């Protein structure tokens, strides 16, 4: 695995430069916005990457909490499987209840992807591993979310004429960012023994909050319509191609950063454990 790291690093560097070339040179110029629109190739992939990392953080936190007790672990397995089956069938059964642009197949894919991720993390990460994974994905997710929140106003200023507007997406992304920053603050400030449990509980609360945030701001903003009309419509297939290339590059980069952060945290914990153990031993090497 260690040998794969520089290879992946090199691949990511190549992919990132190729994606940069694609975004700045190859992608067609947007009709109304001009070259400013190219920030889109950084803004959107960062957002998708951040949301994916936050989802992994939630799953890892749930796993950390349920695996403390074998019984809840077993129940959670069944619940996740039941949810996967429900999303696969429910979308087709209640097709008419779905919003216009949501297809039953996308509901099913999301359900299967989440359940798949859950069982992958469960298989490959130990109890401490899930905690480190949650920490890593939250940290890197906050970085990507910050990129979204910085590139957003940079794009909005020349196009909308304002740096910021309190619309649905902007506000809910900002609230999401705030929740995960408070998560990192909690991790920093709590004493080492209880950090994983408290952080996992907060991550679950944050995830419970996300749909409520979304609905409340959605209703808030539909009551007070904004002069700004955001997006909608279709996208040029060449632009979509560049967007997906950029997303792939960003995903590789995020994976690389997460991986090195994961290893660093693991080594740091091993060192702390060894030091604690050594403190218990007498110079002669015998346990007191």
């Amino acid at each position: 695995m260690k040998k794969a790291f520089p290879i992946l690093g090199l691949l990511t560097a190549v992919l990132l430069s190729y994606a940069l070339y694609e975004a700045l040179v190859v992608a067609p110029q947007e009709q109304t916005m001009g070259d400013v629109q190219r920030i889109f190739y950084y803004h959107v992939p960062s957002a998708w990457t951040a949301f994916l990392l936050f989802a992994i953080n939630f799953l890892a936190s749930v796993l950390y909490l349920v695996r403390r007790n074998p019984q809840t672990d077993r129940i959670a397995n069944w619940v996740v499987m039941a949810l996967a089956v429900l999303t696969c069938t429910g979308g087709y059964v209640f097709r008419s209840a779905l919003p216009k642009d949501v297809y039953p197949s996308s509901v099913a894919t999301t359900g299967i992807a989440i359940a798949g991720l859950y069982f992958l993390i469960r298989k490959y990460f130990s109890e401490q591993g899930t905690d480190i994974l949650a920490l890593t994905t939250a940290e890197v997710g906050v970085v990507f979310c910050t990129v979204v929140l910085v590139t957003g106003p940079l794009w909005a200023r020349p196009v909308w004429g304002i740096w910021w507007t309190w619309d649905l997406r902007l506000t809910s992304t900002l609230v999401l960012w705030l929740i995960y920053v408070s998560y990192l603050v909690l991790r920093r400030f709590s004493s080492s023994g209880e950090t994983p449990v408290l952080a996992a509980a907060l991550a679950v609360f944050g995830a419970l909050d996300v749909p409520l945030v979304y609905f409340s701001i959605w209703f808030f903003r539909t009551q007070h319509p904004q002069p700004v009309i955001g997006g909608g419509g279709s996208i040029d297939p060449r632009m979509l191609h560049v967007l997906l290339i950029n997303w792939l590059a960003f995903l590789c980069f995020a994976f690389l950063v997460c991986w090195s952060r994961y290893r660093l945290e693991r080594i740091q914990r091993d060192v702390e454990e060894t030091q604690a153990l050594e403190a218990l031993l007498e110079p002669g090497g015998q346990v007191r």
Partner: protein
Amino acid sequence: MSAPTGITRATLTKDLRLEWRSKDALNSMLFFALLVVVVFSFSFDPNAEESRVIAGGLVWVAFLFAAVVALNQTWARELRNQVLDAYRVSPAPANALFLAKAIGNFLFVVVLEAVMTPLFIVFYKLHALGPAWQLFPVAVLGTWAIVVNGTFFAAMSLRTRSREIMLPLLLFPITIPALLSMVEATTTILVGDPSTSAKFWIVLLATYDVVFTTGSLALFETVLHAE
């Protein structure tokens, strides 16, 4: 089932009696909320008709800040003489303790609101142009939303460094949907615009309460026993 309710009642009675004799939390909360009222009155003209639109936000921000003062004290009281450690090693159910603390805080904040609301009405010349009775469910559900999350997060931040700062840092981001609902519902009722209704916000608040009460009860034992 009689044992958990007994523990809840005993802890609640003890907290209420302590508060009745010391009045620590209530006095500091009341004074704090009064300060907020006075300080805010300098930032805009409180007699103007437009101030009706911001009054909803003002009232709830004052109550939220004041509630944090009480919530910070709720568990710190149990640290003295290792009461909380004794509770952790005892076989008593953790949720009984949590409910007692949450109900106790709820009562404190309700008393605060009962005292402060007339002051707000007098100082800001408020009267509801919409259906005023709807303010009652908004107040009850909103207060419970603040208190149930606040009690949980206060228990979480209990053993962290700089505990007093931790609580608002954890509480405010998570309560944003509840706060938005309370403020919007109150403003809608005060302004009395016939085209909008506070019903959606009340339903959202109730959903928030159900979700987070369930979440707190499911996770409190884990948090209490986190080593």
